[in-house]
């Protein structure tokens, strides 16, 4: 099921003008506060009727300004987790959760009540009124309510923003199962947390001031130096696919990427599993010669693909490493001093972190 979005809409002082396509799996919308993420999701949900554009989901035109087609929100069957929880204050938690179930067509498949309640830790809250819930509890109920409406697609606007780390670590794999399991539920996902996106997303759409700056498969966008300022210099960095080769007795694991083998601590996946590796641009150092005095395990021979000066004193360097591109962020002065130019080959020293142990998106 693919989602095709073209939106042209103007608020007083803000214009949204963008197109992107999202394939199966999880499509992440990322952008700074006010970039237009919620507006896009609202348009997909049918809560906003854009002044112009076209939205097509799995072949069905939900909105088309040219042909004046507008499918009302209720007929779209998209499970929307709002940025503000929007629980029904007069209904108990369990009534909120089951609110949408009756509107799903007879044959619709979806998450089971007990599973969702257990996943979200709502057992003790079922008879409570939303007004008495804590912030995170509200958000969990909102999440459950959308999941239980048996939607064709999920729209999630920062669904985990006010949840604690351990709860997030329980929900993320569940979202992956929804995506990958028999439901194959596509998800449009807004988040400010790059680590969540690096773990979950198949497609990444970077928004800035109402425009798409970068869009495409996660691996490509994350490896694009132009994305660095958008993701934030501390968060930017390539995501690579790796295979676990072995867990060494000293606690390090060896992982195979297209350019060679890396040794990393703390990888919790069985041998043979594919994992995503996140290599933060700020954790990659460049050296013209093979470095000495450092363990050589995580040194890769790379070719400079491109140099992308940033807003500040830093520059983002795209490096070809085997079949992958990784990003490095170094100071502009270092670029000059080392005489880096595209096409040059050099050595990258990586400090990588594995994300999503045991899970990998298609």
């Amino acid at each position, binding site marked *: 099921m693919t989602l095709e979005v073209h939106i042209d809409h103007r608020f007083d002082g803000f214009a949204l003008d963008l197109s992107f396509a999202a394939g199966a799996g999880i499509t992440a919308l990322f952008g700074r506060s006010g970039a237009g993420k919620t507006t896009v999701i609202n348009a997909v949900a049918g809560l906003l009727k854009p002044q112009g554009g076209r939205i097509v989901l799995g072949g069905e035109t939900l909105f088309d300004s040219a042909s004046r087609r507008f499918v009302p929100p*209720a007929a*779209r069957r998209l499970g929307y987790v709002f940025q503000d929880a929007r629980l*029904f*204050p*007069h209904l108990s938690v369990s009534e909120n959760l089951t*609110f949408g179930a009756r509107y799903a067509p007879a044959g619709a498949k979806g998450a089971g009540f007990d599973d969702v309640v257990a996943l979200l830790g709502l057992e003790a809250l079922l008879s409570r*009124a939303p007004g008495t819930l804590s912030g995170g509890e509200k958000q969990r109920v909102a999440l459950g309510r959308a999941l239980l*409406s048996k939607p064709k697609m999920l729209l999630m606007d920062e669904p985990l923003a006010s949840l604690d780390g351990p709860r997030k670590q329980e929900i993320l794999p569940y979202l992956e199962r929804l995506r990958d399991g028999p439901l194959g539920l596509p998800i449009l996902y807004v988040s400010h947390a790059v680590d969540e996106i690096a773990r979950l997303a198949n497609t990444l759409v970077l928004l800035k001031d109402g425009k798409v700056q970068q869009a495409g498969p996660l691996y490509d966008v994350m490896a694009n130096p132009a994305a660095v300022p958008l993701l934030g210099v501390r968060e930017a960095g390539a995501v690579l696919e790796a295979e676990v080769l072995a867990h060494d007795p000293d606690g390090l694991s060896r992982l195979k990427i297209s350019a060679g083998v890396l040794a990393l601590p703390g990888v919790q996946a069985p041998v043979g599993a594919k994992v995503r590796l996140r290599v933060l641009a700020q954790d990659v150092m460049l050296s013209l010669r093979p470095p000495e005095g450092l363990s050589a395990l995580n040194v890769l021979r790379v070719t400079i693909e491109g140099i992308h000066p940033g807003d500040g004193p830093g520059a983002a360097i795209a490096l070809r490493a085997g079949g992958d591109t990784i990003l490095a962020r170094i100071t502009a002065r270092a670029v000059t001093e080392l005489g880096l130019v595209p096409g040059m080959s050099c050595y990258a020293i990586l400090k990588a972190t594995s994300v999503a142990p045991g899970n990998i998106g298609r």
Partner: protein
Amino acid sequence: MSADAAAWEALRLSLWVACWATLLAVPFALAVAWVLARRDFWGKGLLSAVVHLPLVLPPVVTGYMLLIAFGRTAPLGRALESIGITLAFHWSGAVLAAIIMGFPLMVRAMRLAIEAVDPKLEEAAATLGASDLSIFGRVTLPLIAPGILAGAVMGFAKAMGEFGATITFVANIPGQTQTLPSAIWAALQIPGGESQALGMVVMASVAALGAVLISEALARRVAARIAGT
């Protein structure tokens, strides 16, 4: 019939008329309130003004207008009579008068309640697949329950007190249209009738107190439900 018995009969009738008027008016008032609160259309101000009219005109005038519109010789009155609804000199006519006179009060209370409902909740219900009707029934309606209750109390109270339009439209027929206010009024027109009137004023006040107390208790319960305590 003794004066006392007549007073009790008038009270019974007033309660009966007020209950029917309230029950029948609520759905219409709700519909009009919803339209005024949630729809924008040409002539909205006019509709709102028309709804307010019974408040602005002296009740006699409203009574005359009812007579003109629903009288036996009026087309509307005849049409109703042909389907078995007699308004003339019947308590149902008093119900109609009470509905019309209480309508502005009911509409306003319900409209204020509807305007206070966050449309974002209705949007949320829509994304969950609820049709407009379902949204109204499962989200809007329960949320405006306090407003409906308030409107109903106002309508009930007004119906209990309505006099001018009723007597003009359906006269003062003991057991049919002689409501408590008519009886009170009549008593006051006779020299020395004050004490009898006073008795009936007490009756009406007690009835009003009862209705208001019940509505306050219900409202408290509804509000507590929403606040979750």
